[in-house]
């Protein structure tokens, strides 16, 4: 008889793979992307293509020629996902070379310097985004207006985001811009200015629920973030933060539906590599993000703080991983 194969148990596998998880996240992002293409037109297509291509090429070049790895990892689709997420976080009318720089920083600095997939402490797409935000503040905060499929790319009509107006009203006490705000329903459906993929809360929520149902992510992080933001906004709302002419409920609605919150809560903060392992760790991680983002939005200089909030909490992950999961037979934690 021929030689038998010997290996330790178990001899069965769920069939799950890194590639499958990445593919499902990409699928879950597609509805939001379709909305973006409808709203921002060519800009959405070009930005995403450049970003994805640049991310994949950067990973391949570094892995092949600098790290001299024998096995290439671009097939696991994680670089594609990073590229797509980076594009989601950029204005759709950004110059192509800025997108390129963002992608190179995201993969090169954010991921490969640490040893590739699984080793990076910070979300690579956000590393790329924040690098661009600090280096090109003007270009990064000029968003095209959502006005149906735009055929123009670079010279698109631009305008500020709802959060910018909100901040302006709150900080400067200028209630006149209240007319500039989209209705809550428009914010929910995504008819407003903003980064490429963040505008349509509905599509992002659907994608997020799909990921939870497919057991790609768990509910802990998104629920913790959204609940914290809602509570925070409600509290400051009662304390008089929202401008005249806006009720507390409406204010909470805007905080939840505009900016990068939904994208961040379902797709950025839940990045496997840079989020905690245990259930309680994830909940505290989410609360931290929700809290920081609201502090930045309410008192900080930037109208939006989701990227910073996630990156700051990414840095806390090793500490949060000290929180043990509930052991079998151990008395329940208080």
């Amino acid at each position: 008889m021929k030689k038998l194969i010997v290996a330790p148990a178990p001899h069965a596998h769920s069939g799950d793979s890194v590639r499958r998880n990445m593919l499902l996240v990409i699928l879950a992002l597609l509805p939001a992307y379709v909305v973006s293409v409808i709203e921002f037109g060519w800009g959405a297509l070009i930005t995403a293509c450049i970003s994805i291509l640049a991310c994949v090429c950067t990973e391949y070049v570094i892995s092949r020629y600098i790290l001299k790895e024998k096995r290439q990892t671009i097939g696991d689709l994680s670089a594609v996902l990073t590229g797509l997420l980076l594009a989601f976080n950029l204005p759709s009318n950004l110059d192509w070379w800025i997108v390129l720089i963002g992608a190179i920083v995201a993969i090169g600095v954010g991921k490969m310097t640490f040893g590739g997939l699984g080793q990076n402490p910070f979300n690579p797409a956000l590393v790329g985004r924040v690098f661009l935000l600090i280096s090109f503040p003007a270009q990064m905060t000029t968003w095209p207006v959502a006005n149906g499929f735009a055929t123009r790319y670079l010279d698109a009509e631009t305008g500020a985001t709802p959060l910018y107006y909100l901040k302006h009203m709150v900080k400067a006490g200028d209630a006149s811009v209240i007319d500039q705000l989209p209705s809550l329903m428009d914010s929910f459906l995504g008819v407003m200015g903003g980064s490429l993929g963040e505008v349509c809360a509905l599509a992002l929520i659907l994608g997020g629920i799909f990921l939870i149902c497919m057991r790609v992510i768990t509910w802990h992080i998104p629920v913790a973030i959204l609940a914290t933001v809602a509570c925070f906004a409600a509290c400051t709302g009662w304390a008089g933060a929202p401008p005249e002419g806006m009720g507390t409920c409406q204010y909470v609605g805007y905080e939840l539906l505009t900016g990068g919150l939904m994208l961040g809560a379902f797709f950025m903060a839940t990045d496997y590599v840079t989020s905690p392992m245990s259930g309680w760790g994830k909940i505290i991680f989410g609360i931290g993000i929700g809290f920081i983002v609201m502090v930045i939005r309410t008192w900080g200089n930037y109208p939006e703080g989701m990227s910073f909030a996630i990156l700051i909490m990414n840095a806390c992950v090793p500490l949060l991983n000290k929180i043990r999961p509930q052991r079998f037979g151990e008395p329940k934690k208080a």
Partner: protein
Amino acid sequence: MRTFKIGGVHPHDNKQFSAHQAIKECPLPKQAIIPLVQHIGAPAQAVVKAGDKVKVGELLAQAGGFVSANICSPVSGTVAKIGDWTDAWGAPGQAIYIDVEGDEWLPEIDRTPDLIRQCTLEPKAIIDKIAAAGIVGLGGACFPTHVKLLPPPGKKAEVLIVNGVECEPYLTCDHQLMMEHGEEIIIGIQILKKALGVERAIIGIENNKPDAIAHMRELAEKQLGIEVMPLKLRYPQGGEKQLIDACINRQVPSGALPIEVGAVVDNVATIYAVYEAVQKNKPLISRVMTVTGKNVSKPGNYSVRFGTPIEEVIALAGGVPADTGKIIGGGPMMGRAMDHIEGMPANKRLSGLLFLPEAESIRPEEENCIRCGKCVQACPMGLEPYLLSRLAELEMYDELEKHDVMDCIDCGCCVFTCPAHRRLLDGIRPGKAKVGAILRERAAAAKK
């Protein structure tokens, strides 16, 4: 429907190949090979020598300590030799070789199929009979059954939990045993209840065996204090701690035995053996084995006398399939891949033989850990497998101990679920063994 609370996975159960196949008797071998270690604990000590004539049921080897078990002869014939023997995984040991002559049984063994319902024996006498018959847990661990029935002083059993879960994919021997010998199992449960002095017994069966649930329910209805509990399909529900959690919602603390929460767990096959030993004077000399796999031509459940070379059982099932890559003793989650099958006999430990095609036998290449936490979600003991495996790699045994590596039950859920195909247990297993050795050394030093 109830189940355990933490972790667990859903492997495809693949029981369709051998499910509902009637138990077939495997013919007697020409020579039987009886290993002296077929249980957890000290090896049994041979009480026969070369040239001795033995009958079926005669004592061949005596328990070699408190945690050990007798071995009775499964065949009649002449002891050829007692010599070195290596198991299918390469571990050396001793075995008794018997040249089989006829099939002559000890006269006190009742070989009729008649049911004997009445048991008038005192608890002590029942336990002695179980010990004499060499009964061990046939669910896989092979812990001597009589030891479980003698709780340490100060501990009292409240409930007998009967393991009819059979959560390992592919295996169907317990299922078929319940279908064919349900009445004997019910009588066995009453005997064990008496031995333990408990009023209540719960039979846990997973809901992928609706016919067994219905059948056992029908039989249990006429009995006092036996309840059938359908459980939601989930691996590793057959694990002792998980089963207790599922059935009576009590959690055995870390490092403790089930008796700590008043439970004693026994497998249905073990209980069938108890019935045979107590009511029919038949020691544990055979068991039902599942021989299965996608390409096995006659998969089924076979009643095999211990000592029968497994090649003969495999021949009954149609031989080794051509594209076999792995032959596994037991199921795919916790069974061990055999290095060879020549000279390997059926024994108390071997619940089944699984033939995996070559394509399913090679483990995919490992990728980087993506820190998804799926192993943490899957671990039924609430451990952190990704961390334990890393600590083991780094030989950080103090840290391993602090992170409760000793609670690992080796179920394989973490490896099963890992999307990066990390071989977490390859590190955790030796790490746990090392920490265990350190703990024993420490305990020995503390005694001095």
